[in-house]
């Protein structure tokens, strides 16, 4: 339960906005505004919460006027450190009345007793709404220890954050200090009330919310060399595809990529929730499969697979991934032959995190110079494939050269996607949204808004794996804690055990 100091600040701002107006006289300075976050000239979803910002320029005071095409203008006086806090009710009314239209922003900044008028900017209100909830993990950009870590849900329509579960219970007590990690959350696309995430460490496990019940499950079964890691919930059926990864980290003494996570081994498995059974999807010796993602009809499982293994190439910089998909027959629960979807390795590049839009039109993925864990790789950019034409393009309009753009997810209407980027300071990732228009053009990325526009400047944690949801989490942290305190349900293994694995070649069993 967090105290929202900025609710109070917002009220004060509202009062201030009522008492102030546009300056009577001002000078045109002809310059673009300098605000944080940068909400200039972008497309905004009709249901988004106020896009509050602060004026970065040194100023004595600031006044903003938003003039919509429909309805009356809204004038706001900046509070505190030139914070422009937009009244929520007026904002929502204005967006609702201006769908498909533009909002014009006029910013006046007072410097040395004179008011300056900056070049106006506009925002276009899109009729395409954004899914109202964003789930993410907050983690310090730490290297080994997990620190205080948790999974949270953000209400995008009301700028409110809720804890799903964090590890603070144990982190503060050094007597039970350990690697307690909360990670890899996801929900079922067409039944978003079904969710899952992991609570790692002693007494941990996969926390699965299914059919209104929370359970702790141990998904490591049979000859799997590691537990399950990256999940993909089948859009309609009670199946979760997982990659099972042995993940290592490399700490570079000099390079600007200070840390590089990589996989030593990885394969794909399927968890049948109702049978509580794990079966192998792909057990390979010469490649590694990871980051599964279902096609919206559930007939294909997309994933990325390495062209070799680290044991062969010897250096993670020589390890590259291509995008594949494998057909799935839900009736017989069987798999077809893997198909190459995108060959990045032949271009000396690596493609990871395939995410198909729910309308089946686009495949969004990350491309980098090498590797699969691109969240810390400064060469990582977002690419999009039109699945009708197979045309692939670099989303240059939103990518930040030299900083990682990664971890993306689509809204249920396929009109928006979220991704996390370290573009602002190179170290702390933040979620950004972008709109895809019918031609496949992507609008300028906008940062997650907050009631306090300084929130992400002051937050010393990274947003990790942002994912949309249409419904909120209905369980409380105490429900998850009860599941954690209960005995685990151990999954059975329904595939043959590989007795020939040598532990070196990337086969499923590491001896």
């Amino acid at each position, binding site marked *: 339960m967090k105290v929202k100091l900025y609710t109070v600040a917002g009220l004060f701002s509202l009062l201030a906005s009522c008492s102030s107006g546009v300056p009577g006289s001002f000078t045109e300075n002809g310059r673009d505004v300098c605000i944080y976050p940068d909400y200039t000239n972008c497309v905004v979803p009709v249901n988004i919460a106020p896009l509050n910002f602060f004026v970065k320029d040194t100023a004595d005071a600031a006044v903003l006027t938003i003039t919509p095409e429909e309805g009356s203008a809204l004038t706001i006086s900046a509070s505190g450190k030139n914070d422009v806090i937009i009244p929520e009710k007026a904002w929502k009314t204005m967006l609702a009345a201006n769908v498909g239209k533009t909002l014009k922003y006029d910013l006046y900044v007072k410097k040395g007793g004179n008011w300056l008028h900056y070049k106006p900017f506009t925002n276009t209100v899109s009729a395409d709404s954004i899914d109202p909830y964003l789930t993410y993990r907050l983690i310090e950009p730490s290297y080994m220890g997990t*620190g205080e870590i948790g999974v949270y849900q953000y209400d995008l329509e009301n700028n409110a954050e809720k804890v799903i579960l964090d590890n603070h219970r144990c982190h503060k007590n*050094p*007597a039970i200090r350990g690697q307690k990690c909360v990670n890899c959350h996801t929900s079922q696309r067409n039944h978003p009330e079904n969710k899952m995430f992991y609570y790692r460490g002693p007494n941990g496990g996969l926390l699965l919310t299914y059919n209104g019940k929370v359970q702790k499950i141990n998904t490591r079964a049979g000859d799997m060399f590691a537990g399950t890691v990256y999940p993909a919930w089948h859009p309609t059926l009670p199946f979760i595809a997982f990659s099972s990864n042995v993940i290592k980290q490399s700490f570079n*003494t000099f390079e600007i990529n200070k840390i*590089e996570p990589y996989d030593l081994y990885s394969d794909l498995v399927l968890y049948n929730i109702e049978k509580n059974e794990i079966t192998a999807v792909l057990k390979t010796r010469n490649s590694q499969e990871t980051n599964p993602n279902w096609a919206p009809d559930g007939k294909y499982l997309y994933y990325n697979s390495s062209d070799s293994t680290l044991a062969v190439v010897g250096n993670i910089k020589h390890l590259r991934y291509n995008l594949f998909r494998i057909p799935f027959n839900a009736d017989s629960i069987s798999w077809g032959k893997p198909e190459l979807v995108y060959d990045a390795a032949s271009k000396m590049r690596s493609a990871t995190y395939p995410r198909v839009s729910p309308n089946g039109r686009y495949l969004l993925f990350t491309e980098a110079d090498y590797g699969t864990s691109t969240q810390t790789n400064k060469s990582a950019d977002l690419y999009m494939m039109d699945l009708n034409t197979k045309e692939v393009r670099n989303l240059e309009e939103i990518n930040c050269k030299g900083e990682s753009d990664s971890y993306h997810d689509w809204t249920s209407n396929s009109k928006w996607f979220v991704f996390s980027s370290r573009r*602002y*300071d190179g170290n702390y990732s933040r979620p950004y949204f972008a709109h895809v228009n019918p031609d496949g053009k992507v609008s300028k990325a906008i940062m997650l808004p907050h009631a306090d526009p300084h929130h992400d400047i002051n937050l*010393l944690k990274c947003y990790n794996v942002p994912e949309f949801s249409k419904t909120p989490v209905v369980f409380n942290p105490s429900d998850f804690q009860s599941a954690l305190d209960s005995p685990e349900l151990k999954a059975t293994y329904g595939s043959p055990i590989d007795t020939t694995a040598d532990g070196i070649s990337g086969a499923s069993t590491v001896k």
Partner: protein
Amino acid sequence: MSFKQTRWICEAVLFIFAFLFLGVFNAEYLYALQAQNLFLANSVFANETLAQSAGVLVYVSKFLNQFLHYPLLGACFMSAGLVGIERLVARLTTCDCYCRLLSVFVPSLLVLLAQTSAGYAIYDNFDTSFAVSLEVGLLLSLGLANAFRLLYAKLGTKGLAVSTVLAIVLYFAIGIFSPFSLLVASASLFASDRKTALHFLLGGVALLLLLPMLATSMVQEDYLFTLLGPLPVPYFKPLFMLAMLTLVSVVMAIAVPIFRDLELMQKTFVTPACVLALCGLTFYFSFRDANYRTELEMKHCVEDMDFDGALKVAETVKRPTRPIAAYRYIALEAKGRLSTDLFNFPVRYDTINSPYTDITDLIFQPDLMLYSSQPNISLLWGMESWTNTKRTVSDLKRFTLTSLIQGEAELSRKYINQLKQTVGYSKWAEDFEPYVGKQQELFNAYPVLGNVYRHQLPMVNSIGIFDLPKVMSSYSQLDPVNMERRLLLHLYSKNTNAFISDLQTVAGMYREKMPMCMQEIVALYAMNTKINLIKYFPIKRDVAERVAGFVKAAEFYAKDHENGAEQLKQYQGSYLYFLLFGNPYPNANNLKSNK
């Protein structure tokens, strides 16, 4: 002298002792309490802090804790608080005799003892604002107990109900001190109104047991934290015990009846002398480990880039600990004296005087790595400390330096903006702000940071959490500055084979001039192996003779290093003396008891 005058004198004794003990004797410790903590004036920090048990008290304490950056100022308000505790305890009982007067000083002195006894816990996951929260919490408890008594006197049973409701509401703000105030109110009524005292007692105990159960599902904390917050958990045994003892002493000082005053106590200055004696006991039982104090001072100097100051402090050390040696190493490195003075130091090392030995490396490794031109590895260690123990302003400062050195402008700006929100470091942040994105200007102003940057190795090497010798050994090729660092670290690790092996690959570096410590080991190698390396290096005759003399003399003490180190003191400062008698990695199991 009247009773009132005696009391004033006693209070003056308490204030002066506490002020001197905190502000002078423990000045570095107070500074460290704030350096090992973090308060930021922003909504993110406020939300995070207020969401934990006793959140308001913790938030206020963290804010006040910042003022310990100025130890005399901190000592002043903390000493005044101790007198305040004494006053409030006295107010809750009938303080009309000298024995009672003496007893009401006990809780304040126990608070003082707890405040000054954190020791090495300050580097662990221990909230160092405890020194403030214990005092402020007690003041609030005692004030509330007074208010509850008044409420009961005015409203009777209704007053009791109002008090209980207030205690429940305040529990979420001040934690354990809220139900404790009901216990204190009970103690204060124990002699006069047993029935009401019992009601307060039952209310206090019930809330103490029930409220944490309710709160634990809301604040997402370990149950012990919720139960005890903001007091330390039993992991920090001495501090936990002292905190509990303090709470018990408050109840005892108020509730235990004194039937007859001692005549002796009524004599002039006897009671003040007794208070002074209690102060003496506080001093005696406090944590005063000399090495700990030296480490605090040296860490402070290094963080302020006062390397001469750090070396001056090191001169007084008799048996160093690893943190002391590390900070001396940093200072020597910064002053360019590593090769000449590294081994000119006492060689018999002590372990740190603490049960929390698993955090020893976190104390110094981030600084050591930074000044050894390994900013990425410094960040790795610093983040380990940040996440595994707690966030500190000290780490934030180093992160700022690291990002400035690496030229990461926006990241530097982010850290600087955070530091500008603090009381003690806003000036520091403003001083460094002009260097954001201006590496060369930074290096001109702070050449030591320029050296860090210049001597980074332009090659990628993937390593983990290792100590410096292992980090340096992991490279296949090094520039002359780093090679000399590696050679010296081989010597420090007593890895003479690796030293000789590396030396032969860079023999050209020492054709004309060679540090004394290296001359010694080359001479010794020649003696032992009959491989005459001497002719390749400028080994002075007197050095060779001295080595021969040492080897001969040391034969008697091969198995008695303590005695040998004493008997062969004339060789102190030489590498061979270190090689034979030095124990730079003392046995971690050989712990001294924690005072």
